[in-house]
């Protein structure tokens, strides 16, 4: 180092690279109300389209009369399935290999289904048109219970495929059956269970809910008939995949389609799929020749787009008397609604549900999942989780608790006794995954010490004594959860969506004066990509994060990628960013060596510059190198400084965490209070601790919602009874607790910077922690399992059924 080289720490700090809690660059516009969301778009001549929706869950459509609607001022067109059929667009493929009606074709299969599409001057005129469309229905018997789907008297829902014995995922045994998916060794598992010293069995239900981002789904489609180009701005978590799908189903050449995801007001999985609203807006723009906007209202959103969960998981877990787990068996009945519109990688019709052995070294396991059609909305999206990982985590974390009761063991001890040990990684699970890394015992011990677990148990016992003596009506529940996720889909060899490999990408252009732009195949919906991806690059190429623009979401400019969901942005696009940065650095090294008149191998990287080995006073800063790349003819080196990387991850990443929830429960009212929530997350290398903490707070609050009250419920006629925010629970600031966050750091061995992804961990791990707290409070009165959501009424019913109100 010489006088002109500031200390290393100072130069690193100037970069705001990996590990710094850099403030978000997005916030200036969002705090001033200058975000640019889909519904903010306004274009000359733009029309508004909206749906006539079915009031029935199952009915035949006898006629649709659009005359009165078309006669209204301001109504331009009314589309029905008959109008879409000549274009082949009355049905569309789903991401799960099924197909879905765009507009009702002869019958409706769920309440809220799209029946006709009214195109009008504005949303008011569209609503007038909707009221004027006359649809004659003939009601059909309704199927809402998946366990009744294959009974003799069950109505056949999907007449279009009723006689197909083969579906996208193998044999179908009944017209209402979609697929059976198996993982693991059934015979071996059944043998282990039959010979086991202890077997615990339970039905664990993870109820139907909905991602419900604050911004609903919507788009503006604009067909420019002069140059033949279609542009669609929309709430798309995967803009490139949408472009390809749009091209395949519309027949418009892919280069003539431009998909743009502007700012997105939260996604949580809701905005991965392709919905009838997008297709109809596109068709309407083609028909009318002007831009057409479609934005669903909240009721549409909750009733029609993208439910999540609805897994009935029958489980058996076996162990020795000492508590060593020997086997796990699970049969899941998956209620998919009327169309299988899960957003899973193609080869995984039940997602990564086979991560259900969790954090435990379980030698033998078997999982089967049966997908079933019912008269409910289609979906099955990954609501703030990698595909079905939250179902898996909830299942195993409930089964562990049930087993602990059966064994008479403390549930924390039982977990510790069965964790995969640090020295077992990389670990091959019985259901086929290779866990890349982990250190569960360290995290667990840290968590239990942080909350004074033994002290909590003593307090709980004391409170129980007081309760039994009639001195209090409140119980304490201690909810434990140790989850392991599988995220970052994924390796192209086994992960694709509609045949598109799930790699991701980053393209970097360094400008002559030393600033840069990087474009990615992902799209932020609040995660702060513009902030964090610049930090990854800053550390890789020595350019300050504030001098790097991150751009996503425009398919005409960004490199192809599969988008943002399943915690895949950091594991996949983040890796691509680091790898593209390394290509930049490799070229910069050649330029530096040339400028310093030494061999390439005689210079070494030092934060923001290349230095001649052994001669620290001789260096070239990145800024100097960048300019040289534009203004000097360097033999054997192309001018400019740009790079692109398409990253195919060698494996998934496996974030994990240890959560403890302490809950006070009023036995007489069923009300709950979260007294303490401790969340330790290990997401590998930490890019921006401030953003990680924010993700954990948010994910935990979504977990709180799901566990304690949020559901999409249907009555026996298939009516949605939770279709507004009056009935669909979203916690306010009032019932949301403060969370304590903590971490350990076990880098992923295969990710270029060791990062694993974190956005979904708190939802995956949080739901079992909240639910286990409720169960734990009533454990000593004989409760082993009670279904979520644990709202006040259901908790009151638990207390009542246990005789605590007598």
């Amino acid at each position, binding site marked *: 180092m010489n006088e002109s080289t500031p200390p290393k720490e100072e130069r690193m700090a100037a970069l705001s690279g990996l590990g710094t809690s850099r403030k978000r660059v997005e916030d200036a516009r969002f*705090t*001033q*109300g200058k975000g640019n969301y889909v519904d903010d778009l306004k274009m000359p001549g733009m029309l508004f389209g909206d749906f006539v929706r079915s009031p029935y869950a199952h009915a035949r459509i006898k006629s649709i009369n659009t005359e009165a609607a078309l006669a209204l001022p301001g109504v331009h067109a009314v589309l029905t399935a008959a109008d879409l059929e000549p274009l082949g667009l009355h049905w569309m493929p789903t991401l799960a290999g099924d197909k879905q009606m765009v507009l009702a074709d002869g019958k409706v299969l769920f309440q809220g289904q799209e029946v006709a599409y009214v195109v009008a001057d504005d*949303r008011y005129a569209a609503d007038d048109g909707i009221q004027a469309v006359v649809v004659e229905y003939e009601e059909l018997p309704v199927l809402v219970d998946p366990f009744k789907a294959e009974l003799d008297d069950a109505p056949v829902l999907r007449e279009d495929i009723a006689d197909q014995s083969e579906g996208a995922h193998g044999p179908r045994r009944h017209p209402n059956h979609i697929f059976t998916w198996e993982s693991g060794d059934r015979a071996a598992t059944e043998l282990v269970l039959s010979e086991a010293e202890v077997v615990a069995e339970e039905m664990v239900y993870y109820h139907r809910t909905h991602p419900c981002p604050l911004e*609903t789904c919507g788009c503006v489609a604009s067909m420019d008939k002069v140059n033949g180009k279609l542009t669609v701005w929309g709430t798309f978590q995967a803009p490139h995949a949408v472009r390809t799908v749009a091209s395949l189903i519309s027949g418009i050449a892919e280069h003539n389609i431009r998909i743009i995801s502007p700012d997105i007001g939260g996604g949580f999985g809701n905005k991965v799929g392709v919905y009838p609203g997008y297709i109809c807006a596109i068709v309407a723009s083609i028909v009318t020749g002007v831009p057409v906007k479609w934005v669903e209202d909240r009721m549409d959103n909750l009733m029609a787009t993208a439910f999540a969960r609805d897994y009935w998981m029958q489980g058996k877990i076996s162990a020795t008397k000492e508590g060593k787990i020997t086997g796990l068996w699970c049969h899941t009945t998956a209620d998919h609604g009327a169309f299988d519109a899960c957003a899973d990688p193609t080869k995984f019709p039940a997602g990564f549900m086979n991560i259900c052995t969790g954090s435990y070294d379980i030698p033998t396991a078997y999982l089967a999942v049966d997908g079933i059609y019912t008269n409910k909305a289609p979906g099955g999206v990954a609501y703030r989780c990698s595909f079905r990982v939250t179902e898996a985590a909830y299942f195993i974390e409930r089964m562990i608790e049930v087993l602990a009761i059966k064994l008479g063991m403390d549930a924390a001890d039982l977990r510790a006794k069965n964790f995969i040990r640090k020295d077992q990684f990389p670990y091959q699970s019985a259901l086929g995954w290779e866990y890349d890394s982990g250190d569960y015992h360290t995290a667990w011990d840290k968590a239990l010490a942080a909350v004074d677990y033994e002290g909590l148990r003593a307090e709980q016992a004391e409170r129980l004594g007081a309760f039994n003596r009639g001195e209090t009506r409140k119980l304490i529940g201690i909810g434990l959860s140790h989850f392991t996720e599988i995220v970052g889909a994924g390796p192209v060899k086994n992960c694709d969506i509609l045949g598109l490999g799930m790699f991701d990408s980053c393209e970097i252009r360094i400008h002559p004066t030393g600033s840069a732009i990087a474009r990615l195949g992902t799209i932020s919906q609040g995660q702060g990509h513009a902030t964090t991806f610049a930090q990854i690059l800053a550390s890789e190429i020595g350019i300050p994060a504030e001098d790097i623009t991150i751009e996503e979401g425009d398919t005409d400019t960004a490199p192809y990628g599969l988008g943002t969901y399943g915690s895949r942005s950091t594991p996949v696009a983040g890796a691509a960013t680091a790898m593209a940065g390394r290509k930049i650095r490799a070229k910069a090294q050649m330029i530096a060596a040339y400028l310093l008149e030494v061999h390439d191998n005689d210079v070494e990287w030092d934060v923001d510059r290349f230095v001649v080995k052994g001669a620290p006073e001789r260096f070239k800063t990145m800024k100097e190198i960048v300019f040289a790349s534009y203004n000097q003819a360097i033999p054997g080196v192309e001018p400019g400084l740009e790079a692109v990387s398409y990253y195919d991850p060698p494996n998934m990443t496996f974030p994990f965490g240890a959560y403890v929830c302490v809950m006070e429960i009023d036995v007489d009212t069923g009300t709950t209070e979260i007294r303490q929530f401790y969340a330790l997350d290990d997401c590998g290398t930490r890019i921006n601790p401030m953003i990680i903490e*924010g993700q954990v707070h948010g994910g935990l609050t979504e977990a709180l919602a799901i566990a304690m009250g949020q559901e999409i419920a249907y009555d026996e006629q298939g009516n949605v009874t939770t279709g507004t925010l009056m009935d669909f629970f979203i916690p306010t600031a009032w019932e949301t607790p403060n969370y304590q966050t903590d971490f350990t750091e076990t880098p992923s061995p295969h990710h270029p910077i060791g990062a694993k992804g974190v956005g979904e961990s708190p939802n995956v791990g949080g739901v079992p922690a909240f639910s286990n707290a409720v169960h734990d409070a009533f454990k000593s009165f004989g409760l082993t399992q009670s279904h979520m959501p644990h709202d006040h009424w259901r908790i009151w019913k638990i207390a009542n059924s246990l005789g605590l109100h007598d």
Partner: protein
Amino acid sequence: MGKTHLKMTVNSKEVELLVEPRQLLIHVLREELNLTGAHIGCESSHCGACTIDMNGMSVKSCTVFAAQAQDAEITTIEGLGSPDGLHVLQEMFKEHHGLQCGYCTPGMITRAHRLLQENSNPTEEEVRFGISGNLCRCTGYQNIVKAILAAAAKMNEVKESA
């Protein structure tokens, strides 16, 4: 449909326009006046994304007819701070990571602004109660509460030194 003549003051500027009797205030603000800061999240008064300040009160503009705003004094997020000088609430939301997707943020800040005028030195509990009409799906509120308390402290500091 006959239109109503509407006159109101929005962000200190007088505006006059014709609106349909059934038009909601949020649609007039967003679509006629191009003030797209306030958002629509539920159209039923539950989420607060559309919160504006009307005649000194926080109002959910998705369930107010524009015609009801006759002669009203309205402040939207666009009327708080400017690119050259952010309002202290805007600064504190950034400083304490009080936002993620940004969709609830304009309503949340507009509500917080009124809350701090109603109670310039609120406790954490009062802040939590005071913003409970505004839903956020991303942050879990912890950092929003922190940001509002920090803004209150800063505003009080400025007042004391003045």
